């Protein structure tokens, strides 16, 4: 399966890139996607998560073709 992963704002700056693509055969949760991509980097506290552009919990399972995004608290308006 293939998962598109996106990072925004200060988190993207900290990580040094704005996206990743994750391929594999295992069913994964959002947390597992993070730890596979960033085994040395704990997910920063307060990070928000979206799956297919809807807010999601860290334990949410991710399906093939999904878009997962990690970002800091929002500050629009």
């Amino acid at each position, binding site marked *: 399966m293939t998962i598109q992963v996106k990072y925004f704002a200060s988190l993207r700056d900290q990580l040094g890139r704005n996206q990743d693509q994750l391929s594999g055969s295992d069913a994964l949760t959002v947390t597992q996607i993070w730890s596979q991509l960033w085994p040395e980097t704990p997910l920063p506290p307060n990070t928000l998560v979206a799956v297919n552009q809807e807010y999601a919990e860290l334990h949410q399972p991710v399906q093939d073709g999904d878009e997962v995004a990690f970002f800091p*608290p929002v500050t629009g*308006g």
Partner: protein
Amino acid sequence: MTIEIRETPFDPYAVLAHYQEGMTELQGRYGATASFVGTMRDHNEGSTVTEMILEHYPGMTERHLQHIVAEAQQQWPLLDTLIVHRVGALQPNDTIVLVAVWSAHRTAAFESCRFIMEALKSRAPFWKKEALPAGERWVASNTAG
């Protein structure tokens, strides 16, 4: 319902007037218009701010603004809503956001405008980065109100 993410500066009052002039089928039906305009300050948390970069998550932003307006429509009898939000590089005094709602009576207009604005600030995926005399910083969280 109209939702627009803009990369260029805009005059919120001209946009509002132009939009309302185009609402020909609603003329005579609305008795209340409430609007909120958010403008960039030249200071934040004790620092001078010279420029601001507004980033968003294309697609998710528009989707969540639509969700927010749909929730407002379920709570109040709204005739129309308009949201215009800037992204990109902003200067002090630039308009950040315009929210306008039209309803038959004032309670729905006042309350839904506030609801939309607060929901936008807490849920719509936008992020602000400020340019200060000493460098840049991401805004960590919105002010309480």
